[in-house]
C-alpha cells in the first residue's frame, strides 16, 4: 500500500509526518535540527529516500543537509572522503559554500541590485529558500537563494555552482527585495524538456531558460503591479509562487502579490484568473496531481494584513483553471484564525484521490485526502511553518 511522507520546514526545526495511503493517522518525527530555521526540505523523485534540506540561522549561516534514508539520519554532503568519522567516532561533514560567480569567463557578473531605498546594493548571500531535486538524476539538485540567484549541484549537494546567466542577463539592477528579502523561491524543472527551467523571484518576477540555464529571459508580460512605478514593467513584480502540473508543462499558475494568474504558453504571457476570489492576495498556489485544471490558493486579506478574511481559514479551489472558485472549509478553523500560509507551504500527493497539504505560521499542518473536500489537522502546535513538501511512496 502506498505511503505519504510530508516534509515540514519550520522556524525552529524540521518535522516529518508519515501515514499510509488512507492518510487518516499520522506519525510525527522531529524536531530535526531543533532550533534552526528549516526553510525547505524536498525529496528526490528518482530516489525518494534522498531528501535535501536547507538549514540556516542568522547567527551561523547556511548549511545543506542530506538524508539518504528517508529522513532518519542526515549528513552534510560536503563530508570529505575518508573523513566520515571524526574524534570519538563522531561523524564529520563540511558546510556548503554558495559563492556568486564573479568570473568574466563564465558569466556577466553583476555586483548590485536595487535596495529598499532605491539605491544600488551589492549582492550578499543570505540563505537557501528552495531546493529542487532533478527529476532524472539523484545527484543533481538546484537551489534558489537570497539574494536572488540560482545554484546547481551535480554531486549530491557537496559543491554548488551559480547559473550566473540569470543574474547577469541584464535586468538585475532593477530587481529589488520584497518584505521577506530578495529571494529566488520557485524552481520548476520541465519534465519534458531538460533544458527548460522556470524560476521566480520576489520582487523581480518570473524568468525562463530554454538552454539549461545559460541564458534567461523575463516572462512577465500580462502582469500588472500597481505598487511599482511602471505597473507593466518587464521586471519588478512581486511573484509569490508559481505552480505547474507535470502533465502540461506549458501551463503555469501564479500567485502574485495581488492577483492569481495563468499562462498557457510557458510564461510568454499571463492572464488574470482571480475571478470570484474574496481577495486575490496570497502566497501559495498549487495544482491537483491528476486534474491539471484544478488549482488551489489560500486567500489572505491584504499585503498589510497577512491573515485570512474574517478570521476564517479557507482554501479556494478552481476546477476550471481559475476564474470560478469554490470555498473549501470543512475541517478548517471557522473563527479567530489569524495565521498566514507562506509561499512554499502547500503541496499535493499523487495518490488516486489527490491529497492536499498546507502549513501555517501558527504551526498547524492541515491535510485533505479527498482533493480538498474535507480537511483534518495533521499537526497542531509546531513552530511557524515555512514549507511543506509531500512525497508519495510505494
Amino acid at each position, binding site marked *: 500500500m502506498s505511503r505519504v511522507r510530508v516534509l515540514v520546514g519550520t522556524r525552529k526545526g524540521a518535522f516529518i509526518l508519515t501515514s499510509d495511503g488512507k492518510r487518516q493517522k499520522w506519525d510525527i518525527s522531529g524536531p530535526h535540527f531543533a532550533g534552526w530555521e528549516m526553510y525547505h526540505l524536498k525529496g528526490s523523485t528518482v530516489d525518494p529516500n534522498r531528501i535535501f534540506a536547507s538549514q540556516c540561522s*542568522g547567527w551561523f*549561516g547556511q548549511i545543506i543537509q542530506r538524508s539518504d534514508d528517508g529522513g532518519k539520519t542526515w549528513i552534510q554532503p560536503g563530508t570529505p572522503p575518508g573523513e566520515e568519522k*571524526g574524534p570519538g567516532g563522531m*561523524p564529520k561533514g563540511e*558546510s556548503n559554500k554558495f559563492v556568486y560567480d564573479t568570473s568574466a569567463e563564465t558569466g556577466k557578473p553583476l555586483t548590485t541590485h536595487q535596495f529598499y531605498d532605491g539605491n544600488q546594493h551589492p549582492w550578499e548571500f543570505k540563505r537557501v529558500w528552495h531546493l529542487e531535486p532533478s527529476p532524472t538524476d539523484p545527484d543533481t539538485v538546484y537551489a534558489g537563494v537570497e539574494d536572488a540567484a540560482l545554484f546547481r549541484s551535480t554531486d549530491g549537494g557537496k559543491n554548488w555552482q551559480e547559473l550566473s546567466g540569470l543574474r547577469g542577463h541584464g535586468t538585475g539592477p532593477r530587481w529589488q527585495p520584497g518584505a521577506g528579502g530578495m529571494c529566488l523561491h520557485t524552481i520548476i524543472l520541465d519534465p519534458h524538456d531538460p533544458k527548460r527551467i522556470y524560476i521566480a523571484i520576489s520582487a523581480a518576477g518570473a524568468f525562463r531558460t530554454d538552454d539549461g540555464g545559460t541564458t534567461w529571459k523575463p516572462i512577465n508580460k500580462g502582469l500588472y503591479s500597481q505598487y511599482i512605478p511602471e505597473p507593466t514593467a518587464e521586471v519588478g513584480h512581486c511573484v509569490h509562487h508559481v505552480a505547474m502540473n507535470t502533465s502540461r508543462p506549458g501551463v503555469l499558475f501564479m500567485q502574485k502579490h495581488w492577483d492569481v494568474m495563468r499562462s498557457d504558453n510557458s510564461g510568454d504571457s499571463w492572464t488574470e484568473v482571480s475571478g470570484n476570489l474574496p481577495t486575490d492576495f496570497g502566497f501559495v498556489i498549487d495544482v491537483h496531481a491528476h486534474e491539471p485544471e484544478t488549482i488551489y490558493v489560500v486567500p489572505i486579506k491584504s499585503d498589510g494584513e497577512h491573515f485570512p478574511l474574517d478570521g476564517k481559514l479557507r482554501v479556494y479551489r478552481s476546477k476550471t483553471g481559475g476564474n470560478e472558485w469554490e470555498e473549501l472549509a470543512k475541517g478548517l478553523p471557522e473563527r479567530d484564525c489569524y495565521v498566514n500560509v507562506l509561499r512554499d507551504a502547500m503541496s499535493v500527493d499523487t495518490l488516486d484521490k489527490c491529497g492536499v497539504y498546507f502549513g501555517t505560521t501558527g504551526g498547524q499542518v492541515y491535510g485533505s485526502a479527498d482533493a480538498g473536500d474535507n480537511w483534518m489537522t495533521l499537526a497542531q502546535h509546531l513552530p511557524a511553518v515555512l514549507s511543506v513538501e509531500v512525497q508519495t511512496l510505494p
Partner: protein
Amino acid sequence: MIRVVLPGHLRTLAHVSSEVQLEIVGPVTQRSVLDALEAQYPMLRGTIRDHVTQERRPFLRFFACEEDYSLEPPDTPLPDAVASGKEPLLIIGAIAGG
C-alpha cells in the same frame, strides 16, 4: 592544548557535548584557532566566519579572560592564559529574544 567553548547550536552541529580541545603549532590567534577548529570539525566551516571573506559572522563574538576580542585583528595573539589552555576562548552568539 587550546580550549574553545562553542554556542549550543554549533556543539550540536559538531557533535560535541562540551568544550573542544585543539592542538595549535605556532602563534595562538583568532585565525589559528579557527583554522584548527575548522580542520578538526569541517562541519563548522562557514558558521563562525564567512566562507569567502573569512570575516566573523556579525552575530558572533569572541571572549576570553573576561575580555572582548571580537574586534581585534585576526592575527593578534590571544592571551597567554588561552594559549596555555588555562582559560578557554568563548565563541558567543549574540543574545536575541526577550
